[in-house]
């Protein structure tokens, strides 16, 4: 009865929900075939060639490779848990969430289809690389073919269970989701202290199937199969237990992300995931103090009110300092990659502390709210990102030193920290996407204007990577003082541009 209703419902409108015509579907198919031919097949071929190299094969066959599988499997399960709070597997668009998941049909029926679709996508994402690795090991690496096939089968079962874990997480409250993630992380660490606990850890099941040179054991396959059957049996109850408010909230968010992503507004799309304040409602954010201190404290209290975001930002800046220091220390290596990644991490991490810049930019484009000029507002709001960038990046540098890296260019790291502050200001002052960039650029593969928009949107990312890499190259070629000058020159240019944009309102 319920399946009849859902079938009728699909005929009545679900198929037309996105307004897609037959031509649109044909174009999507055409793009899919072209992407597979131009990107997919060469990528698989390149991966196969890379993995088939003797050095890589030796690493894959090494018994220690299963440890890496153990860690990757744990990461997959953790991502599945965290994803449940952002985008669960059982999700429809907002209207259908109300019209279909909000009616009197149990959600085990109304949400079964989107869940299975998400689960299949997840399984494909995990099983394809597992199959590629098994193929390489089984054919080129001279491994046991049965062992390789069992690994692929185990990966499929593991992916199915991970899909159910994703669903489980979707219906959990935030605090319980965090508890589940913490429990999984703890369970993963236990075998390091008590090796006998290994068979009870889910990641160990798939790691135990890794087709290395050790003899194959069947128990992990049996356990993962049992776990998958048990997980699938729980799916109807998990679907029934999904919360309508949370379903609608996720559906709205993802519709906004889709719309913003489609028009190339990636900053807006990422903004949808910006956590909202949850604690510290009564904290004093406005002190009787000079404006610079006032704005610094207000911005700081604002970031403290989203604790997880604050910690994530601080850790990312710490990692940026650590990675950049290691990169500048790595002589004769492709060391430039590390400072480039460090600058990028710094740019991403500092976003947490740069809400004030966004606020100043918004104020510049509207009726005056504050007594201060735009430039004064920018200066006041620069205090928090400036202090945080220098402090956390510096701590990362210190950690790298404690880990054995030498600190030959502390000035360069500090200059990079200051540079990412300016880069954040530049990003906040950036105008809306110019309409001219949306002009179609016809190519045999379709309209390439999307690429132009992508470059325009990702300019800060590219600048961060470029300046980080350039700083590393100049340190090697002309010494740290020259690198500091290069970084500061780039920062000055961006600062001038940003201030001019903000003055123009």
């Amino acid at each position, binding site marked *: 009865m319920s399946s009849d209703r859902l079938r*009728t419902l699909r005929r*009545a409108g*679900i198929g037309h929900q996105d307004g897609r015509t037959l031509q649109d579907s044909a174009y999507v198919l055409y793009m899919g075939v072209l992407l597979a031919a131009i990107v997919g097949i060469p990528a698989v071929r390149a991966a196969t060639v890379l993995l088939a190299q003797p050095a890589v094969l030796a690493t894959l066959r090494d018994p220690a490779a299963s440890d890496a599988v153990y860690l990757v499997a744990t990461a997959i399960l953790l991502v599945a848990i965290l994803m449940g709070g952002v985008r669960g597997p059982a999700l429809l668009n907002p*209207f259908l*969430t109300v019209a279909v998941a909000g009616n009197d049909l149990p959600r085990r029926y109304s949400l079964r289809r989107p869940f299975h679709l998400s689960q299949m996508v997840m399984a494909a994402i995990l099983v394809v690389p597992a199959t590629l690795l098994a193929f390489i090991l089984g054919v080129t690496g001279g491994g046991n073919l049965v062992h390789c096939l069992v690994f692929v089968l185990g990966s499929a079962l593991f992916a199915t269970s991970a899909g159910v874990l994703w669903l489980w997480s979707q219906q959990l409250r935030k605090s319980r989701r965090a508890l589940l993630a913490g429990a999984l992380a703890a369970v993963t660490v236990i075998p390091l202290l008590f090796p006998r606990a290994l068979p009870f850890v889910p990641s160990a099941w798939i790691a135990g199937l890794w087709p290395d040179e050790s003899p194959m054991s069947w128990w992990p396959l049996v356990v993962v199969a049992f776990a998958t059957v048990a997980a699938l049996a729980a799916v109807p109850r998990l679907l029934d237990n999904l919360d309508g*408010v949370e379903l609608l909230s996720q559906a709205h968010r993802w519709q906004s992300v889709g719309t913003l992503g489609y028009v190339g507004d990636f900053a807006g799309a990422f903004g949808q995931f910006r956590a909202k304040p949850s604690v510290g*409602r009564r904290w004093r954010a406005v002190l009787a103090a000079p404006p610079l201190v006032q704005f610094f404290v207000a911005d700081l209290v604002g970031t403290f009110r989203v604790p997880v975001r604050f910690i994530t930002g601080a850790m990312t800046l710490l990692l940026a300092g650590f990675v950049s220091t290691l990169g500048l220390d790595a002589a004769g290596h492709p060391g430039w990659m590390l400072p480039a990644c460090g600058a990028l991490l710094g740019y991403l991490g500092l976003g947490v502390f740069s809400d004030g810049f966004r606020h100043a930019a918004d104020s510049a484009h509207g009726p005056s709210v504050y007594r201060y000029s735009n430039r004064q507002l920018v200066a006041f709001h620069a205090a928090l990102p400036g202090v945080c960038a220098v402090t956390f990046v510096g701590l990362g540098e210190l950690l790298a030193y404690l880990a054995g890296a030498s600190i030959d260019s502390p000035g360069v790291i500090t200059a990079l920290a200051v540079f990412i502050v300016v880069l954040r200001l530049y990003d906040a002052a950036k105008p809306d996407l110019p309409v001219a960039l949306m002009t179609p650029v016809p190519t045999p593969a379709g309209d390439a204007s999307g690429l132009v928009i992508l470059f325009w949107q990702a300019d800060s990312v590219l600048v961060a990577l470029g300046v980080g890499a350039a700083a590393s190259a100049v340190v090697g070629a002309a010494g740290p003082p020259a690198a500091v000058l290069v970084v500061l020159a780039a920062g000055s240019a961006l600062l001038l541009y940003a201030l001019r944009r903000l003055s123009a309102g």
Partner: protein
Amino acid sequence: MTTGSGIVVEGVTVSRGGLPLLAPVDFALEPASSLALSGHNGAGKTTLLRVLAGLTPPTTGRVLIGGAPTNERDPRFRARVAALIGLPPLARNLTLTEHLTLIRVSWGATTRDAAAGARQLLSDLRLENLGSRFPHELSSGQTQLFCLAVTLARPFEVLLLDEPEQRLDGDRRELVTAMLLTLKNDGTTVVFASHNATMISTLADATLALREPVAPA
């Protein structure tokens, strides 16, 4: 003709982070009767409606609808309660008739019956000429009427409405009031928040004046 469900609210409060959003509320409402919620902005009218709709858990107290606790996850509860609290989600690419048809089909109607019911509902709300429009092509008053239509397109025993008179002209306010009165007389239990004295006096069997919650010193 629907069989309304009674509502019992005992000692319900809502607070977030120590800040009260809804002062203690108690009431009992018989099936097929109506209650108007009045009060200043911020008194908690919308919050109370959200509690009744199972969208916001009460901090203290309990709510029973048809003798059962509110639980948005329970299909029987969803079948019993319809609510218009804020703008419902609308699909950009569906016409008004398609929206309503889809909703009715989702509640078990055949496509033909659902389409006929959708046209009737649009006609009842004097939107019959707009059936092939998309939501973004409506005026603000038409959007409000259509949101009501979206809410009324499905079966229900209890109807919760947050300021249904918003953005409507005098004629349309009378139309909506008359329509809700008919629903009540047919057995629906109606709880609505309103600032319109005429609507309250015409439709409500009782009025609950909410007092503003007071933050602890």
